[in-house]
Protein backbone atom coordinates (compact mmCIF):
# COMPACT_ATOMS: atom_id res chain seq x y z
CA UNK A 1 0.00 0.00 0.00
CA UNK A 2 3.10 2.20 0.24
CA UNK A 3 2.37 4.09 -2.96
CA UNK A 4 -1.38 4.35 -2.46
CA UNK A 5 -3.29 6.14 0.25
CA UNK A 6 -3.06 4.19 3.54
CA UNK A 7 -6.59 3.18 4.49
CA UNK A 8 -7.82 3.89 8.00
CA UNK A 9 -10.00 1.23 9.58
CA UNK A 10 -12.09 1.45 12.75
CA UNK A 11 -12.04 -1.88 14.55
CA UNK A 12 -14.19 -2.83 17.54
CA UNK A 13 -16.47 -5.35 19.21
CA UNK A 14 -20.00 -4.02 19.51
CA UNK A 15 -22.49 -4.02 22.36
CA UNK A 16 -21.98 -5.77 25.69
CA UNK A 17 -19.60 -8.18 24.01
CA UNK A 18 -16.24 -8.80 25.70
CA UNK A 19 -14.68 -11.35 23.34
CA UNK A 20 -11.21 -9.84 23.08
CA UNK A 21 -9.09 -12.53 21.45
CA UNK A 22 -10.25 -12.20 17.86
CA UNK A 23 -10.11 -8.41 18.14
CA UNK A 24 -6.48 -8.58 19.19
CA UNK A 25 -5.61 -10.83 16.26
CA UNK A 26 -7.51 -8.66 13.78
CA UNK A 27 -5.64 -5.58 14.97
CA UNK A 28 -2.36 -7.38 14.48
CA UNK A 29 -3.26 -8.83 11.08
CA UNK A 30 -4.66 -5.58 9.59
CA UNK A 31 -1.71 -3.59 10.89
CA UNK A 32 0.72 -6.12 9.44
CA UNK A 33 -1.17 -5.84 6.15
CA UNK A 34 -0.40 -2.13 6.04
CA UNK A 35 -3.65 -0.54 7.15
CA UNK A 36 -3.92 2.18 9.75
CA UNK A 37 -5.99 0.53 12.48
CA UNK A 38 -7.93 2.43 15.12
CA UNK A 39 -9.01 -0.22 17.59
CA UNK A 40 -11.76 0.89 19.96
CA UNK A 41 -11.73 -2.55 21.61
CA UNK A 42 -14.54 -4.54 23.14
CA UNK A 43 -17.88 -3.31 24.50
CA UNK A 44 -18.00 -0.51 21.99
CA UNK A 45 -21.27 1.36 21.43
CA UNK A 46 -22.56 2.44 18.03
CA UNK A 47 -21.69 6.02 18.99
CA UNK A 48 -18.09 5.08 19.71
CA UNK A 49 -17.76 3.50 16.25
CA UNK A 50 -19.25 6.57 14.54
CA UNK A 51 -17.28 9.08 16.58
CA UNK A 52 -14.02 7.28 15.97
CA UNK A 53 -14.75 7.16 12.24
CA UNK A 54 -15.59 10.86 12.08
CA UNK A 55 -12.58 11.89 14.15
CA UNK A 56 -10.04 9.87 12.17
CA UNK A 57 -11.72 10.42 8.81
CA UNK A 58 -11.77 6.63 8.47
CA UNK A 59 -12.37 4.67 5.28
CA UNK A 60 -14.16 1.74 6.79
CA UNK A 61 -15.74 0.42 9.98
CA UNK A 62 -15.12 -3.21 10.94
CA UNK A 63 -17.60 -4.46 13.50
CA UNK A 64 -17.14 -7.71 15.40
CA UNK A 65 -19.91 -9.41 17.29
CA UNK A 66 -19.28 -12.80 18.81
CA UNK A 67 -21.69 -13.25 21.66
CA UNK A 68 -24.98 -13.62 19.78
CA UNK A 69 -26.60 -10.23 20.25
CA UNK A 70 -25.16 -8.88 17.01
CA UNK A 71 -28.54 -8.59 15.37
CA UNK A 72 -29.89 -6.33 18.10
CA UNK A 73 -26.65 -4.40 18.57
CA UNK A 74 -25.94 -3.61 14.92
CA UNK A 75 -29.38 -2.39 13.91
CA UNK A 76 -29.32 1.36 13.15
CA UNK A 77 -25.56 1.74 12.72
CA UNK A 78 -25.88 2.73 9.06
CA UNK A 79 -28.55 5.29 9.99
CA UNK A 80 -26.25 6.76 12.65
CA UNK A 81 -23.49 7.01 10.07
CA UNK A 82 -25.82 8.88 7.72
CA UNK A 83 -26.84 11.29 10.49
CA UNK A 84 -23.18 11.90 11.24
CA UNK A 85 -22.57 12.76 7.62
CA UNK A 86 -20.47 9.69 6.80
CA UNK A 87 -23.27 7.72 5.18
CA UNK A 88 -21.01 6.44 2.41
CA UNK A 89 -18.45 4.79 4.72
CA UNK A 90 -17.81 1.13 4.05
CA UNK A 91 -19.05 -1.15 6.83
CA UNK A 92 -17.99 -4.76 7.41
CA UNK A 93 -19.24 -7.07 10.10
CA UNK A 94 -18.10 -10.53 11.26
CA UNK A 95 -17.98 -13.04 14.10
CA UNK A 96 -20.74 -15.22 15.50
CA UNK A 97 -23.37 -12.73 14.46
CA UNK A 98 -26.58 -14.34 15.63
CA UNK A 99 -27.79 -16.62 18.38
CA UNK A 100 -27.15 -20.23 17.42
CA UNK A 101 -26.20 -22.08 14.27
CA UNK A 102 -28.33 -20.53 11.52
CA UNK A 103 -28.31 -20.68 7.76
CA UNK A 104 -25.51 -18.32 6.73
CA UNK A 105 -27.06 -16.96 3.53
CA UNK A 106 -30.10 -15.86 5.52
CA UNK A 107 -27.96 -14.23 8.19
CA UNK A 108 -25.82 -12.50 5.59
CA UNK A 109 -28.93 -11.05 3.98
CA UNK A 110 -30.16 -9.74 7.33
CA UNK A 111 -26.91 -7.83 7.82
CA UNK A 112 -26.57 -6.49 4.29
CA UNK A 113 -30.17 -5.32 4.58
CA UNK A 114 -29.09 -3.45 7.71
CA UNK A 115 -26.61 -1.56 5.55
CA UNK A 116 -23.40 -3.56 5.89
CA UNK A 117 -21.32 -3.87 2.74
CA UNK A 118 -20.12 -7.32 3.67
CA UNK A 119 -20.78 -9.82 6.44
CA UNK A 120 -18.49 -12.71 7.40
CA UNK A 121 -19.43 -16.10 8.88
CA UNK A 122 -17.86 -17.60 12.02
CA UNK A 123 -14.21 -18.50 11.76
CA UNK A 124 -13.35 -16.18 8.87
CA UNK A 125 -9.58 -15.74 8.64
CA UNK A 126 -8.35 -12.11 8.58
CA UNK A 127 -6.70 -12.61 5.20
CA UNK A 128 -10.05 -13.03 3.52
CA UNK A 129 -11.28 -9.63 4.69
CA UNK A 130 -7.95 -8.02 3.86
CA UNK A 131 -8.26 -9.24 0.27
CA UNK A 132 -11.87 -8.02 0.04
CA UNK A 133 -11.04 -4.57 1.37
CA UNK A 134 -8.13 -4.18 -1.00
CA UNK A 135 -10.48 -5.10 -3.82
CA UNK A 136 -13.38 -2.94 -2.60
CA UNK A 137 -11.14 0.10 -2.56
CA UNK A 138 -10.05 -0.53 -6.10
CA UNK A 139 -6.50 -1.70 -5.49
CA UNK A 140 -5.40 -4.29 -8.00
CA UNK A 141 -3.00 -6.25 -5.85
CA UNK A 142 -2.36 -6.81 -2.19
CA UNK A 143 -0.39 -4.13 -0.49
Amino acid at each position, binding site marked *: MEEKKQLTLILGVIGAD*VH*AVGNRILEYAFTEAGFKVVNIGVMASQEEFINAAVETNADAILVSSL*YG*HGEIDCRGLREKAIEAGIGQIKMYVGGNLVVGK*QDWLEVEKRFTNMGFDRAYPPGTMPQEAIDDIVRDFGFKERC
Partner: protein
Amino acid sequence: MQSQNRKLDWEQFLKIREEALKSWPTGQEVDLAEAIAYQKQIPASRRFGQRLEEAKKEGITLAQPRAGVALVHEHIELLRFLVDEGGADLLPTTIDSYTRQNRYNEAQAGIEESRTVGRSMLNGFPAVNHGLTACREVTEAMKVPVQVRHGTPDARLLTEISLAGGFTAYEGGGISYNIPYAKEVPLERSIRDWQYVDRLVGYYEEQGVSINREPFGPLTGTLVPPCISHAVAIIEALLAAEQGVKSLTLGYGQCGNLLQDVAAVRSLEELADEYLERFGYKNVVITTVFHQWMGGFPQDESKAFGVISWGAATAAMAKATKVIVKTPHEALGIPTKEANAAGIRATKQLLNMLKDQPPLVNNEIITEKELIKIETRAILERLLEFGEGDIALGTVRGFQAGVIDVPFAPSRFNAGRLLPARDHNGAVRLLDFGNLPFGEDIKEVHREKIAQRGKLEGRDPSFQMVIDDIYAIGKGMLVGKPR
Protein backbone atom coordinates in the same frame (compact mmCIF):
# COMPACT_ATOMS: atom_id res chain seq x y z
CA MET B 1 -12.56 2.94 49.59
CA GLN B 2 -9.60 0.64 50.00
CA SER B 3 -10.18 -3.08 49.42
CA GLN B 4 -9.94 -5.26 52.46
CA ASN B 5 -10.55 -8.94 53.03
CA ARG B 6 -12.81 -8.44 56.03
CA LYS B 7 -16.26 -9.82 56.71
CA LEU B 8 -18.89 -7.23 55.72
CA ASP B 9 -20.58 -5.65 58.67
CA TRP B 10 -24.24 -6.71 58.73
CA GLU B 11 -25.66 -3.19 59.08
CA GLN B 12 -23.59 -2.03 56.18
CA PHE B 13 -24.67 -5.10 54.21
CA LEU B 14 -28.32 -4.19 54.80
CA LYS B 15 -27.75 -0.64 53.64
CA ILE B 16 -26.13 -1.79 50.41
CA ARG B 17 -28.89 -4.34 50.03
CA GLU B 18 -31.64 -1.77 50.10
CA GLU B 19 -30.01 0.12 47.29
CA ALA B 20 -29.22 -3.02 45.26
CA LEU B 21 -32.78 -4.33 45.37
CA LYS B 22 -34.01 -1.03 44.00
CA SER B 23 -32.10 -1.28 40.75
CA TRP B 24 -34.93 -3.18 39.03
CA PRO B 25 -38.57 -3.66 40.13
CA THR B 26 -38.25 -7.43 40.65
CA GLY B 27 -35.79 -6.71 43.46
CA GLN B 28 -38.71 -5.76 45.65
CA GLU B 29 -40.04 -9.31 45.56
CA VAL B 30 -37.15 -10.62 47.67
CA ASP B 31 -37.79 -11.12 51.38
CA LEU B 32 -34.71 -12.62 52.99
CA ALA B 33 -36.46 -14.51 55.77
CA GLU B 34 -39.00 -15.95 53.39
CA ALA B 35 -36.22 -16.84 50.97
CA ILE B 36 -34.32 -18.76 53.63
CA ALA B 37 -37.47 -20.57 54.70
CA TYR B 38 -38.06 -21.42 51.05
CA GLN B 39 -34.50 -22.69 50.53
CA LYS B 40 -34.80 -24.83 53.67
CA GLN B 41 -37.56 -26.95 52.19
CA ILE B 42 -35.57 -27.77 49.05
CA PRO B 43 -34.82 -31.51 49.23
CA ALA B 44 -31.26 -32.77 49.51
CA SER B 45 -31.45 -34.20 46.00
CA ARG B 46 -31.57 -30.66 44.64
CA ARG B 47 -28.79 -29.22 46.80
CA PHE B 48 -25.78 -28.62 44.60
CA GLY B 49 -23.07 -28.74 47.25
CA GLN B 50 -24.32 -31.98 48.67
CA ARG B 51 -24.24 -33.71 45.29
CA LEU B 52 -20.68 -32.49 44.79
CA GLU B 53 -19.55 -33.72 48.17
CA GLU B 54 -21.00 -37.16 47.48
CA ALA B 55 -19.25 -37.27 44.12
CA LYS B 56 -15.97 -36.29 45.71
CA LYS B 57 -16.33 -39.12 48.21
CA GLU B 58 -17.19 -41.60 45.50
CA GLY B 59 -14.27 -40.38 43.39
CA ILE B 60 -16.45 -39.79 40.34
CA THR B 61 -16.84 -36.84 37.98
CA LEU B 62 -20.25 -35.25 37.35
CA ALA B 63 -21.27 -33.67 34.04
CA GLN B 64 -22.78 -30.18 33.81
CA PRO B 65 -23.72 -28.33 30.63
CA ARG B 66 -24.14 -24.59 30.04
CA ALA B 67 -27.59 -23.50 28.88
CA GLY B 68 -30.01 -20.63 28.97
CA VAL B 69 -32.66 -19.08 26.71
CA ALA B 70 -34.74 -15.94 26.92
CA LEU B 71 -38.15 -17.32 27.93
CA VAL B 72 -39.14 -19.24 31.06
CA HIS B 73 -41.01 -22.17 29.57
CA GLU B 74 -38.49 -22.67 26.82
CA HIS B 75 -35.78 -22.58 29.47
CA ILE B 76 -37.51 -25.24 31.56
CA GLU B 77 -38.00 -27.39 28.51
CA LEU B 78 -34.32 -26.96 27.62
CA LEU B 79 -33.08 -27.99 31.06
CA ARG B 80 -35.41 -30.98 31.24
CA PHE B 81 -34.18 -32.10 27.86
CA LEU B 82 -30.57 -31.94 29.02
CA VAL B 83 -31.34 -34.31 31.88
CA ASP B 84 -33.68 -36.63 30.01
CA GLU B 85 -31.84 -36.83 26.71
CA GLY B 86 -28.34 -35.81 27.75
CA GLY B 87 -28.06 -37.41 31.18
CA ALA B 88 -26.78 -34.20 32.80
CA ASP B 89 -25.95 -34.77 36.47
CA LEU B 90 -26.07 -31.08 37.34
CA LEU B 91 -27.86 -28.22 35.63
CA PRO B 92 -27.00 -24.63 34.84
CA THR B 93 -28.97 -21.52 34.20
CA THR B 94 -26.74 -19.40 32.02
CA ILE B 95 -27.59 -15.70 32.21
CA ASP B 96 -27.70 -13.46 29.11
CA SER B 97 -25.08 -10.79 28.44
CA TYR B 98 -27.31 -7.77 28.99
CA THR B 99 -28.23 -8.91 32.48
CA ARG B 100 -24.55 -9.52 33.14
CA GLN B 101 -23.96 -5.85 32.42
CA ASN B 102 -27.03 -4.81 34.48
CA ARG B 103 -28.65 -3.58 31.28
CA TYR B 104 -32.12 -4.76 32.27
CA ASN B 105 -33.88 -2.54 29.75
CA GLU B 106 -32.07 -4.18 26.89
CA ALA B 107 -32.74 -7.60 28.39
CA GLN B 108 -36.43 -6.68 28.49
CA ALA B 109 -36.35 -5.73 24.81
CA GLY B 110 -34.67 -9.08 24.12
CA ILE B 111 -37.40 -10.95 25.98
CA GLU B 112 -40.10 -9.17 24.04
CA GLU B 113 -38.42 -9.63 20.69
CA SER B 114 -37.90 -13.33 21.48
CA ARG B 115 -41.65 -13.64 22.09
CA THR B 116 -42.37 -11.93 18.79
CA VAL B 117 -39.95 -13.80 16.53
CA GLY B 118 -40.39 -17.14 18.27
CA ARG B 119 -36.70 -17.83 18.86
CA SER B 120 -34.37 -16.75 21.64
CA MET B 121 -32.83 -13.39 20.80
CA LEU B 122 -30.82 -13.47 24.05
CA ASN B 123 -27.75 -15.56 24.72
CA GLY B 124 -29.02 -16.62 28.13
CA PHE B 125 -31.80 -16.53 30.71
CA PRO B 126 -32.55 -13.01 32.01
CA ALA B 127 -33.25 -14.06 35.61
CA VAL B 128 -33.54 -10.55 37.03
CA ASN B 129 -36.21 -9.46 34.56
CA HIS B 130 -38.15 -12.68 35.00
CA GLY B 131 -37.93 -12.36 38.77
CA LEU B 132 -38.18 -14.65 41.75
CA THR B 133 -41.36 -16.57 40.93
CA ALA B 134 -40.10 -17.53 37.51
CA CYS B 135 -36.81 -18.69 39.03
CA ARG B 136 -38.68 -20.88 41.48
CA GLU B 137 -40.71 -22.26 38.63
CA VAL B 138 -37.45 -23.24 36.93
CA THR B 139 -35.68 -24.79 39.92
CA GLU B 140 -38.78 -26.63 41.12
CA ALA B 141 -39.32 -28.18 37.72
CA MET B 142 -35.95 -29.95 37.95
CA LYS B 143 -35.03 -33.09 39.80
CA VAL B 144 -31.32 -32.30 39.90
CA PRO B 145 -29.53 -29.27 41.42
CA VAL B 146 -29.35 -26.07 39.37
CA GLN B 147 -26.62 -23.43 39.43
CA VAL B 148 -26.60 -19.88 38.10
CA ARG B 149 -23.71 -19.28 35.68
CA HIS B 150 -23.03 -15.86 34.26
CA GLY B 151 -20.17 -13.35 34.07
CA THR B 152 -21.49 -10.38 35.98
CA PRO B 153 -19.16 -7.85 37.60
CA ASP B 154 -21.97 -6.46 39.79
CA ALA B 155 -24.16 -9.43 40.58
CA ARG B 156 -25.79 -8.26 43.80
CA LEU B 157 -29.35 -8.10 42.55
CA LEU B 158 -28.96 -11.23 40.44
CA THR B 159 -27.69 -13.14 43.49
CA GLU B 160 -30.55 -12.00 45.70
CA ILE B 161 -33.09 -13.11 43.11
CA SER B 162 -31.26 -16.34 42.31
CA LEU B 163 -30.94 -17.53 45.89
CA ALA B 164 -34.51 -16.55 46.76
CA GLY B 165 -35.42 -18.26 43.50
CA GLY B 166 -34.18 -21.63 44.70
CA PHE B 167 -30.84 -21.99 42.94
CA THR B 168 -28.44 -23.82 45.25
CA ALA B 169 -25.17 -22.89 43.59
CA TYR B 170 -23.74 -19.71 42.18
CA GLU B 171 -20.78 -19.06 39.92
CA GLY B 172 -18.50 -16.05 39.82
CA GLY B 173 -16.12 -13.84 41.73
CA GLY B 174 -14.80 -10.33 41.99
CA ILE B 175 -11.83 -11.03 39.76
CA SER B 176 -12.97 -13.90 37.57
CA TYR B 177 -16.23 -12.14 36.61
CA ASN B 178 -14.55 -8.83 36.04
CA ILE B 179 -11.20 -9.14 34.28
CA PRO B 180 -12.43 -11.49 31.49
CA TYR B 181 -15.96 -10.01 31.33
CA ALA B 182 -15.61 -6.25 31.58
CA LYS B 183 -13.61 -3.35 30.27
CA GLU B 184 -14.14 -0.44 32.62
CA VAL B 185 -15.03 -1.88 36.00
CA PRO B 186 -12.40 -1.16 38.68
CA LEU B 187 -11.33 -4.20 40.69
CA GLU B 188 -12.05 -2.44 44.00
CA ARG B 189 -15.65 -2.18 42.93
CA SER B 190 -16.14 -5.73 41.65
CA ILE B 191 -14.36 -7.19 44.67
CA ARG B 192 -16.63 -5.20 46.97
CA ASP B 193 -19.74 -6.19 45.05
CA TRP B 194 -18.71 -9.83 45.21
CA GLN B 195 -17.99 -9.53 48.93
CA TYR B 196 -21.65 -8.62 49.11
CA VAL B 197 -22.55 -11.79 47.19
CA ASP B 198 -20.37 -13.93 49.39
CA ARG B 199 -21.71 -12.27 52.52
CA LEU B 200 -25.24 -13.09 51.39
CA VAL B 201 -24.23 -16.70 50.77
CA GLY B 202 -22.47 -16.71 54.14
CA TYR B 203 -25.65 -15.46 55.76
CA TYR B 204 -27.68 -18.27 54.18
CA GLU B 205 -24.99 -20.65 55.45
CA GLU B 206 -25.34 -19.23 58.99
CA GLN B 207 -29.07 -19.83 58.75
CA GLY B 208 -28.44 -23.45 57.89
CA VAL B 209 -28.79 -23.19 54.12
CA SER B 210 -25.66 -24.21 52.26
CA ILE B 211 -25.13 -22.57 48.89
CA ASN B 212 -22.26 -23.76 46.71
CA ARG B 213 -19.95 -21.05 45.34
CA GLU B 214 -17.73 -21.43 42.32
CA PRO B 215 -15.15 -18.89 41.18
CA PHE B 216 -14.94 -18.91 37.37
CA GLY B 217 -11.81 -20.91 36.67
CA PRO B 218 -10.99 -20.54 32.96
CA LEU B 219 -10.91 -16.71 32.88
CA THR B 220 -10.43 -15.81 29.20
CA GLY B 221 -10.31 -19.48 28.25
CA THR B 222 -7.39 -18.91 25.93
CA LEU B 223 -3.96 -20.26 26.83
CA VAL B 224 -4.23 -19.23 30.48
CA PRO B 225 -1.32 -20.85 32.36
CA PRO B 226 -2.46 -22.83 35.43
CA CYS B 227 -0.59 -20.59 37.89
CA ILE B 228 -2.67 -17.58 36.81
CA SER B 229 -6.06 -19.19 37.12
CA HIS B 230 -5.00 -20.99 40.31
CA ALA B 231 -3.91 -17.71 41.90
CA VAL B 232 -7.27 -16.13 41.05
CA ALA B 233 -9.18 -19.18 42.30
CA ILE B 234 -7.38 -19.15 45.61
CA ILE B 235 -7.80 -15.41 46.11
CA GLU B 236 -11.51 -15.77 45.49
CA ALA B 237 -11.65 -18.76 47.80
CA LEU B 238 -10.07 -16.70 50.58
CA LEU B 239 -12.43 -13.78 49.91
CA ALA B 240 -15.46 -16.07 49.94
CA ALA B 241 -14.39 -17.98 53.03
CA GLU B 242 -13.96 -14.72 54.93
CA GLN B 243 -17.62 -13.91 54.25
CA GLY B 244 -18.70 -17.28 55.57
CA VAL B 245 -18.91 -19.40 52.43
CA LYS B 246 -18.41 -23.08 53.26
CA SER B 247 -18.92 -24.94 49.99
CA LEU B 248 -16.43 -23.99 47.31
CA THR B 249 -15.78 -25.45 43.88
CA LEU B 250 -12.54 -24.28 42.29
CA GLY B 251 -12.14 -24.37 38.56
CA TYR B 252 -9.57 -24.80 35.85
CA GLY B 253 -9.92 -24.65 32.08
CA GLN B 254 -8.33 -27.46 30.09
CA CYS B 255 -5.11 -26.49 28.34
CA GLY B 256 -4.90 -29.73 26.37
CA ASN B 257 -1.67 -31.34 27.54
CA LEU B 258 -2.72 -34.30 29.68
CA LEU B 259 0.03 -34.20 32.24
CA GLN B 260 -0.23 -30.45 32.78
CA ASP B 261 -4.00 -30.66 33.08
CA VAL B 262 -3.98 -33.49 35.59
CA ALA B 263 -1.27 -31.74 37.58
CA ALA B 264 -3.31 -28.54 37.50
CA VAL B 265 -6.48 -30.08 38.92
CA ARG B 266 -4.59 -31.86 41.69
CA SER B 267 -2.45 -28.90 42.64
CA LEU B 268 -5.46 -26.61 42.70
CA GLU B 269 -7.15 -28.57 45.43
CA GLU B 270 -3.95 -28.95 47.44
CA LEU B 271 -3.06 -25.27 47.18
CA ALA B 272 -6.55 -24.24 48.23
CA ASP B 273 -6.42 -26.45 51.30
CA GLU B 274 -3.00 -25.02 52.10
CA TYR B 275 -4.07 -21.38 51.93
CA LEU B 276 -7.45 -21.81 53.60
CA GLU B 277 -5.76 -23.62 56.44
CA ARG B 278 -3.05 -20.99 56.71
CA PHE B 279 -5.60 -18.19 57.03
CA GLY B 280 -7.64 -20.13 59.53
CA TYR B 281 -10.77 -20.85 57.48
CA LYS B 282 -12.20 -24.06 58.86
CA ASN B 283 -14.79 -26.50 57.58
CA VAL B 284 -14.67 -25.27 54.03
CA VAL B 285 -15.30 -28.12 51.62
CA ILE B 286 -13.27 -27.80 48.43
CA THR B 287 -14.32 -29.58 45.26
CA THR B 288 -12.96 -29.06 41.74
CA VAL B 289 -14.40 -28.31 38.33
CA PHE B 290 -12.64 -28.97 35.05
CA HIS B 291 -13.77 -27.03 32.00
CA GLN B 292 -13.50 -28.72 28.64
CA TRP B 293 -11.36 -26.60 26.30
CA MET B 294 -12.62 -23.02 26.57
CA GLY B 295 -10.86 -21.49 23.58
CA GLY B 296 -11.72 -21.55 19.90
CA PHE B 297 -13.31 -24.83 18.76
CA PRO B 298 -13.25 -26.64 15.41
CA GLN B 299 -16.35 -25.91 13.31
CA ASP B 300 -16.65 -29.50 12.21
CA GLU B 301 -18.89 -31.40 14.62
CA SER B 302 -16.93 -34.65 14.54
CA LYS B 303 -13.75 -32.81 15.43
CA ALA B 304 -15.64 -30.95 18.13
CA PHE B 305 -16.71 -34.34 19.54
CA GLY B 306 -13.02 -35.24 19.62
CA VAL B 307 -12.18 -32.12 21.64
CA ILE B 308 -15.15 -32.68 23.96
CA SER B 309 -14.17 -36.29 24.56
CA TRP B 310 -10.57 -35.39 25.31
CA GLY B 311 -11.80 -32.91 27.90
CA ALA B 312 -14.06 -35.54 29.44
CA ALA B 313 -11.26 -38.09 29.53
CA THR B 314 -8.84 -35.65 31.13
CA ALA B 315 -11.40 -34.63 33.75
CA ALA B 316 -11.91 -38.28 34.63
CA MET B 317 -8.21 -39.08 34.76
CA ALA B 318 -7.66 -36.05 37.00
CA LYS B 319 -10.71 -37.04 39.07
CA ALA B 320 -12.18 -33.54 39.00
CA THR B 321 -15.48 -33.41 40.89
CA LYS B 322 -17.36 -32.05 37.90
CA VAL B 323 -16.74 -31.22 34.28
CA ILE B 324 -18.33 -28.40 32.31
CA VAL B 325 -19.37 -29.71 28.94
CA LYS B 326 -19.00 -28.09 25.53
CA THR B 327 -21.15 -28.91 22.53
CA PRO B 328 -20.56 -29.80 18.87
CA HIS B 329 -21.98 -26.35 17.96
CA GLU B 330 -19.40 -24.48 20.04
CA ALA B 331 -17.60 -22.75 17.18
CA LEU B 332 -20.81 -21.64 15.53
CA GLY B 333 -23.28 -20.41 18.08
CA ILE B 334 -25.40 -21.12 21.12
CA PRO B 335 -26.22 -24.81 20.75
CA THR B 336 -29.64 -26.25 20.11
CA LYS B 337 -30.84 -28.44 22.92
CA GLU B 338 -30.08 -31.47 20.78
CA ALA B 339 -26.47 -30.44 20.23
CA ASN B 340 -26.11 -29.65 23.90
CA ALA B 341 -27.43 -33.08 24.92
CA ALA B 342 -25.11 -34.70 22.37
CA GLY B 343 -22.10 -33.10 24.04
CA ILE B 344 -23.24 -34.39 27.41
CA ARG B 345 -23.79 -37.92 26.11
CA ALA B 346 -20.31 -38.11 24.60
CA THR B 347 -18.91 -36.77 27.85
CA LYS B 348 -20.80 -39.22 30.01
CA GLN B 349 -19.73 -42.16 27.88
CA LEU B 350 -16.14 -41.21 28.68
CA LEU B 351 -16.76 -40.45 32.33
CA ASN B 352 -18.48 -43.79 32.80
CA MET B 353 -15.81 -45.73 30.95
CA LEU B 354 -13.13 -44.06 33.07
CA LYS B 355 -14.73 -43.80 36.47
CA ASP B 356 -13.53 -47.21 37.62
CA GLN B 357 -10.00 -46.60 36.38
CA PRO B 358 -7.48 -45.32 38.91
CA PRO B 359 -6.47 -41.65 38.86
CA LEU B 360 -3.44 -41.10 36.66
CA VAL B 361 -0.10 -40.75 38.46
CA ASN B 362 3.46 -40.55 37.26
CA ASN B 363 6.66 -38.64 37.79
CA GLU B 364 6.00 -35.98 35.17
CA ILE B 365 2.71 -35.17 36.86
CA ILE B 366 4.46 -34.79 40.20
CA THR B 367 7.10 -32.51 38.69
CA GLU B 368 4.49 -30.45 36.89
CA LYS B 369 2.41 -30.15 40.04
CA GLU B 370 5.41 -28.87 41.93
CA LEU B 371 6.11 -26.31 39.22
CA ILE B 372 2.52 -25.05 39.28
CA LYS B 373 2.62 -24.79 43.05
CA ILE B 374 5.85 -22.83 43.11
CA GLU B 375 4.54 -20.44 40.47
CA THR B 376 1.18 -19.95 42.14
CA ARG B 377 2.75 -19.40 45.55
CA ALA B 378 5.18 -16.88 44.05
CA ILE B 379 2.24 -14.84 42.79
CA LEU B 380 0.15 -15.16 45.93
CA GLU B 381 3.02 -14.33 48.25
CA ARG B 382 3.89 -11.22 46.29
CA LEU B 383 0.23 -10.16 46.39
CA LEU B 384 0.15 -10.64 50.14
CA GLU B 385 3.27 -8.48 50.40
CA PHE B 386 1.65 -5.83 48.22
CA GLY B 387 -1.44 -5.92 50.41
CA GLU B 388 0.51 -5.81 53.65
CA GLY B 389 -0.99 -9.16 54.52
CA ASP B 390 -4.42 -8.42 53.05
CA ILE B 391 -5.17 -10.45 49.93
CA ALA B 392 -7.96 -8.15 48.70
CA LEU B 393 -5.77 -5.08 48.81
CA GLY B 394 -2.83 -7.04 47.45
CA THR B 395 -4.90 -8.21 44.51
CA VAL B 396 -5.92 -4.70 43.50
CA ARG B 397 -2.36 -3.45 43.76
CA GLY B 398 -0.98 -6.57 42.15
CA PHE B 399 -3.17 -6.23 39.06
CA GLN B 400 -2.06 -2.62 38.78
CA ALA B 401 1.55 -3.69 38.88
CA GLY B 402 1.02 -6.65 36.55
CA VAL B 403 2.26 -8.99 39.24
CA ILE B 404 -0.81 -10.96 38.37
CA ASP B 405 -1.96 -10.69 34.79
CA VAL B 406 -4.55 -12.50 32.67
CA PRO B 407 -3.75 -13.13 28.98
CA PHE B 408 -6.14 -11.62 26.41
CA ALA B 409 -8.38 -10.01 29.02
CA PRO B 410 -10.52 -7.06 27.92
CA SER B 411 -10.21 -5.18 31.22
CA ARG B 412 -8.38 -1.87 31.44
CA PHE B 413 -7.38 -2.89 34.95
CA ASN B 414 -5.38 -5.84 33.73
CA ALA B 415 -1.80 -5.21 32.61
CA GLY B 416 -2.16 -7.52 29.60
CA ARG B 417 1.55 -8.05 29.21
CA LEU B 418 1.74 -11.83 29.35
CA LEU B 419 2.29 -13.83 26.21
CA PRO B 420 1.54 -17.50 26.65
CA ALA B 421 2.62 -20.13 24.14
CA ARG B 422 2.73 -23.88 24.02
CA ASP B 423 5.93 -25.82 24.49
CA HIS B 424 6.97 -28.77 22.32
CA ASN B 425 4.67 -31.06 24.31
CA GLY B 426 1.69 -28.74 24.05
CA ALA B 427 1.77 -27.54 27.65
CA VAL B 428 1.02 -23.84 28.08
CA ARG B 429 4.11 -21.86 29.12
CA LEU B 430 5.06 -18.19 29.07
CA LEU B 431 6.88 -16.47 26.27
CA ASP B 432 6.64 -13.06 27.94
CA PHE B 433 6.37 -13.00 31.73
CA GLY B 434 5.27 -9.38 31.99
CA ASN B 435 5.79 -8.51 35.64
CA LEU B 436 5.06 -11.94 37.10
CA PRO B 437 7.20 -12.36 40.23
CA PHE B 438 8.94 -15.52 39.06
CA GLY B 439 12.50 -16.36 39.99
CA GLU B 440 15.06 -16.86 37.24
CA ASP B 441 14.99 -20.64 37.78
CA ILE B 442 11.29 -20.78 36.93
CA LYS B 443 11.67 -18.44 33.99
CA GLU B 444 14.45 -20.60 32.69
CA VAL B 445 12.15 -23.65 32.71
CA HIS B 446 9.65 -21.82 30.50
CA ARG B 447 12.26 -20.36 28.19
CA GLU B 448 13.98 -23.66 27.74
CA LYS B 449 10.77 -25.50 26.89
CA ILE B 450 9.55 -22.91 24.41
CA ALA B 451 13.03 -22.76 22.87
CA GLN B 452 12.87 -26.51 22.36
CA ARG B 453 9.67 -26.03 20.39
CA GLY B 454 11.16 -23.18 18.42
CA LYS B 455 14.03 -25.41 17.43
CA LEU B 456 11.71 -28.21 16.32
CA GLU B 457 9.73 -25.74 14.22
CA GLY B 458 12.78 -23.89 12.95
CA ARG B 459 11.59 -20.47 14.04
CA ASP B 460 12.11 -17.99 16.83
CA PRO B 461 9.29 -17.76 19.35
CA SER B 462 7.17 -14.68 18.57
CA PHE B 463 3.62 -13.31 18.60
CA GLN B 464 3.01 -15.32 15.43
CA MET B 465 3.55 -18.48 17.50
CA VAL B 466 0.93 -17.24 19.98
CA ILE B 467 -1.55 -16.61 17.16
CA ASP B 468 -0.87 -20.06 15.73
CA ASP B 469 -1.59 -21.53 19.17
CA ILE B 470 -4.84 -19.60 19.48
CA TYR B 471 -6.07 -21.05 16.21
CA ALA B 472 -4.53 -24.50 16.72
CA ILE B 473 -7.30 -26.56 18.34
CA GLY B 474 -9.87 -24.97 16.05
CA LYS B 475 -7.74 -26.14 13.14
CA GLY B 476 -7.28 -29.64 14.48
CA MET B 477 -3.96 -29.46 16.34
CA LEU B 478 -2.69 -28.65 19.79
CA VAL B 479 0.62 -26.97 19.08
CA GLY B 480 0.15 -24.30 16.40
CA LYS B 481 2.42 -25.12 13.49
CA PRO B 482 4.01 -22.45 11.28
CA ARG B 483 2.11 -21.95 8.04
